[in-house]
């Protein structure tokens, strides 16, 4: 038998670089240990926001980066998640640990309902349609009395820290760990997805829908699957954010800015790459938080100017995002010449 073929078959499917694995393991241990060194509440907040935005960007990365559909209304799923936990806790006393899944479920339903008609639209039209849907969610919630209309929901506060109500008033450390664990689980699952049969097929849909059709791939179904997965990643972040700030309103959790920021983070870090959103969030979130501190409320939009500048530079010089500074053979696959 052909020895070159035998050699090719003996290669590992994935290039496992032990140094990269140990660096990642080391970073995870470091993240778990950090609060033990007495981080002040600002740094805890900064890390919580990085974890949250990395997951939100990863959600957008699944639909846009993996399957190639640009959604501009992803904030809708964030808001659904936020309202799901807050509303069911306030009205029925249901613990957020259960209603998180309810938020995911409702988001998934909406993703299917929006996805079936919208994903037939190609390219720009899908983007425009999702933009309008994102805005319409905000408009509906601003007028929906049951969920507090424009003034939103003030989550009933527990007298003391409570794991069952997912509220912590004395310290941000528990929030830090909750966000960290969601962040790690999400990235692990998306990493598995990118290496699965589904991941391969989504990339096929992204790169060439017609070629995908010729390979037995039902393109519209796969787009909907990607949209549903993406929505289900976004919703829990809305839920956790609501538990973190304990007051939500349509202007905050259905803000169009959410949909834009997840796009910026992903494009900056590297679209279509599992690690891109982490890099993007680690850079953009501190810029946002520090500009808020040093410029105060009046300079609220200054971070957006920075974002815009950085994004322009990235698009011109590094269209594949910052992740492209790391040689591909380390992260993804080896290439033999």
């Amino acid at each position, binding site marked *: 038998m*052909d020895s*070159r*073929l035998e050699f*090719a*078959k003996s290669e590992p*499917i994935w290039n496992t670089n032990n140094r990269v694995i140990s660096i990642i393991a080391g970073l995870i241990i470091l993240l778990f240990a950090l609060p033990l060194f007495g981080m002040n509440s600002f740094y805890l907040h900064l890390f919580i926001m990085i974890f949250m935005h990395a997951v939100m960007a990863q959600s957008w990365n699944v639909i846009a980066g993996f399957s190639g559909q640009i959604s501009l209304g992803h904030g809708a799923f964030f808001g659904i998640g936020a309202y799901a936990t807050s509303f069911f806790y306030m009205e029925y006393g249901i613990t957020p640990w259960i209603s998180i899944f309810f938020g995911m479920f409702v988001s998934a339903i909406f993703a299917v309902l929006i996805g079936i008609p919208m994903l037939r639209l190609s390219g720009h039209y899908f983007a425009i349609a999702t933009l309008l849907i994102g805005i319409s969610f905000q408009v509906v919630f601003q007028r929906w009395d049951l969920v507090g209309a424009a003034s939103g929901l003030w989550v009933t506060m527990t007298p003391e820290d409570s794991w069952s109500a997912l509220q912590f008033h004395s310290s941000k450390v528990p929030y830090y760990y909750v966000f960290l664990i969601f962040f790690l689980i999400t990235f692990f699952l998306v990493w598995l997805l990118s*290496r*699965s*049969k589904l991941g*391969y*097929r989504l*990339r*096929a849909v992204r*790169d*060439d829908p*017609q*070629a*995908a*059709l*010729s*390979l*037995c*791939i*039902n*393109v519209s179904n796969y787009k909907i699957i990607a949209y549903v997965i993406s929505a289900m990643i976004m919703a829990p972040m809305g839920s956790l954010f609501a538990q973190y700030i304990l007051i939500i309103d349509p202007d905050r959790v259905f803000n169009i800015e959410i949909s834009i920021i997840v796009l910026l983070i992903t494009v900056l870090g590297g679209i279509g790459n599992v690690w891109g959103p982490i890099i993007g969030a680690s850079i953009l979130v501190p810029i946002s938080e520090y500009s808020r501190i040093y410029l105060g409320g009046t300079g609220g939009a200054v971070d957006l100017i920075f974002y815009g500048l950085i994004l322009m530079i990235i698009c011109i010089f590094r269209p594949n995002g910052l992740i492209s500074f790391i040689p591909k053979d380390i992260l993804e*696959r*080896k*290439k*033999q010449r």
Partner: protein
Amino acid sequence: MKILTVEKLSKSFGGIHANRDISFDVEEGSILGVIGPNGAGKSTLFNLITGFTKPDTGKVKFFDKNIFGISPDKISNLGVGRTFQKLKPFADQTLLENVMIGAFVKEKDIKRARDRALEIIDFVDLIEKRHHFAKELSTGQRKRLEMARAMAIDPKLLLMDEVTGGVDQKTIPGLVELVKKLKKTGVTIITIEHNINIIMEISDNVLALDQGKRIAFGEPKEIQNNKQVIDAYLGTFDAA
């Protein structure tokens, strides 16, 4: 056994009859060559059979199954593979990943899909290029990529749109050999081809189209002597 039966298949775009009442059939295990001048409706015929374009009227049967007007992913799932005239590789993925996406149709397990893809890549003689991105490959190599990717779904019928189009002369014999090698595996082939010598060499039957209509259908020898074909297509050789 007839693997494909096409009866009176028609498609018009606006007032233009791209395909008009085209009928032919293909014997299992054979090669059908499709010829015709530019705009004769060859690629449209491919798109109608594979479901990429919805036909207006007529009948298309794959074995005994009616596949008229059903969606392309369903048709490919029945065992009809195709390549594209304007190549459509997954450009940002490696050759191996391209073929694996096809191989997943038959193999659910990632390792088995990988091994199956490697065997097919070896069959089309590109094993050394397996980790190259599709966009880095030459046109001839990308033609082989498309053939490998289509073969990965284990088709019974393979439609190839211009295997030797757009490549340099030195590359052509290798591609022709590959088509012959493919036929030996038992797959039935329909191929669009401009090079008349290649068509005569590889085809068991030839379908000649002109202006959307069938002008001849039969063995290569008959076609070569058919007056209408000579006028429409082969005649250009005499003029030269």
